């Protein structure tokens, strides 16, 4: 033993062994030994596809910036201590967008439309919201969601989604029934201004005494079809052009309607709609006053991560909601780097030329 301790070679060997253990332990702790585990990076890779558009969001790449305010009526103040729900007006920077990774995709071909906003930007009480036209998710967790996107993606050879694959996926996921029922009956309206946009995931409102109430919300349009300028169906930017025409003379208004869950509702499962008879509270009106093209627009700088919440609103444990943080951050990191390096794609939209 003494001889071993005095042998320099043996001591160097011991050093090497310890260092190897140190490196393996650190790599393990840093999550490098779980290759089967789906990462935010893989998720964003799938969303952006093979043809990346530098400087643009990896999902919902095409959109238009909007500005306005949220006029709270105070009805929700007893449920949430968030100051924005007191009777007051809070400004927002927002964005209408369509699903997909292509920033020049035709507006009218997209299956999903979105409304996102950052309320009380430049304060510590920001509320970031990202809402979509479907009221529910097809699946309950990010791993199934990844497989869903894979199943719906175009085949690399035929360039079209494979109906067999889609069928097989939904057969394996009966929880997608409510989503598919919605999809079967959904007819896109002829304007961003007349869609209903849903929070999809549930959140908690926290009142002043700390009591929590699970809620979902929906932005309900006040505009009706009849009141809108005609849509130029041949334009790829049809929805954006129409939006700019409406905003020339009018304000676009949405009521923000909250649905309160009761004990039978699972706030952590985004696939199940809550029954219509649940109590609803209208918190106020979103007034959209002006717009701006997204390229170099103020909304392009924003990451609409719905996990950025003010005091008085809290995230539920819904696995889809919780997964959005890392995925949004990865998408934001990629396009921010492209903007920093000046390699972003320049996109000309017809709506930009109109002004």
């Amino acid at each position, binding site marked *: 033993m003494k001889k071993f301790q005095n042998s*320099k070679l043996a*001591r*160097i060997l*011991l*050093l090497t062994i*310890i*260092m190897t253990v*140190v*490196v393996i332990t*650190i790599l393990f*702790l*840093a*999550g*490098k030994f779980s290759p089967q*585990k*789906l*990462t*935010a*990076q893989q*998720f964003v890779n799938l969303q952006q596809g093979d043809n990346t558009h530098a400087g643009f969001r990896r999902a919902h790449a095409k959109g238009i910036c909007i500005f306005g305010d949220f006029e709270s009526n105070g009805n929700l103040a007893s449920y949430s201590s968030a100051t924005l729900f007191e009777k007051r007006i809070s400004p927002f920077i927002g964005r209408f967008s369509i699903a997909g990774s292509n920033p020049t995709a035709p507006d009218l071909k997209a299956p999903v439309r979105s409304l996102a906003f*950052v309320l009380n*930007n*430049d304060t*510590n009480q*920001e509320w970031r919201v990202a809402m979509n036209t479907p009221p529910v998710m097809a699946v309950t967790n*990010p*791993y199934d969601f990844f497989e869903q996107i894979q199943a719906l993606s175009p085949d690399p050879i035929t360039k079209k989604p494979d109906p067999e694959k889609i069928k097989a996926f939904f057969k394996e996921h009966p929880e997608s029934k409510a989503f598919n029922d919605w999809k079967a009956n959904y007819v896109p309206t002829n304007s961003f201004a007349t869609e209903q946009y849903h929070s999809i995931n549930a959140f908690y409102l926290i009142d002043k005494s700390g009591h929590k109430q699970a809620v979902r919300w929906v932005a309900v349009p006040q505009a009706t079809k009849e009141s809108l300028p005609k849509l130029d169906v041949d334009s790829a930017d049809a929805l954006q052009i129409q939006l700019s025409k409406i905003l020339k003379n009018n304000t676009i208004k949405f009521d923000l309607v909250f649905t309160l869950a009761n004990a039978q509702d699972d706030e952590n499962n985004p696939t199940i709609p809550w029954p219509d008879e649940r109590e609803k509270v209208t918190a106020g009106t979103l007034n959209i006053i002006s717009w701006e093209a997204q390229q170099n627009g103020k909304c*392009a*700088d924003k*990451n609409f991560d719905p*996990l*950025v919440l003010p005091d008085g609103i809290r*995230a539920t*444990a819904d*696995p889809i909601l*919780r*997964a959005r*943080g*890392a*995925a949004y*951050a*990865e998408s*934001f*990191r990629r*396009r*921010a*780097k492209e*903007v*920093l390096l000046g390699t972003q794609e320049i996109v000309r939209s017809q709506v930009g030329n109109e002004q």
Partner: protein
Amino acid sequence: MTSIGHSLSTRLLHWAMAFIIISMLCLGSSMIQSLDTWQMEAVKLHKSFGIVALILVIVRLFNKLISKSPPLPNDLPKWQKFAAHVTHFSLYALMLAMPISGWLMQSADGREVSLFNLITLPQLIHADIKMYSLFREIHGYVASLFFLILFMHIGAALYHGLVRRDGVLSSMTSGK
């Protein structure tokens, strides 16, 4: 060869920070990949301990001014002495760069950094996507460099303790 070791304050600061830094590097690199439900809480913890680390490194720099470090062994080859100084200087630079770049990147995305929801730090800069990218990338590269320098630091410490047995390692463990 025996020398007077590091003071108790130096050793406590060293080991507390060693624990925080390694935990933070591992947490940071796993949380940016994670789609799991704990991710959001992990980010909050990461920010809170980032503030703790920033406070500790400032305390440590003051402590370094008032307490004397034992000299390196006289018989240590010149290149090793040089490497030791470069590594130590780098470690201090990295210990400052990590929390400050983290704070800046959060400010540049308009996000708050708070210490366990008790104190919220002021925003250092206005929200700006280019500034976000600059500090986000710095935060990432500095983290990779930190792993490398830590590897050298631990390797050198064990070389002193196991191979040379010159009292350098024990000056930071037992203080003798």
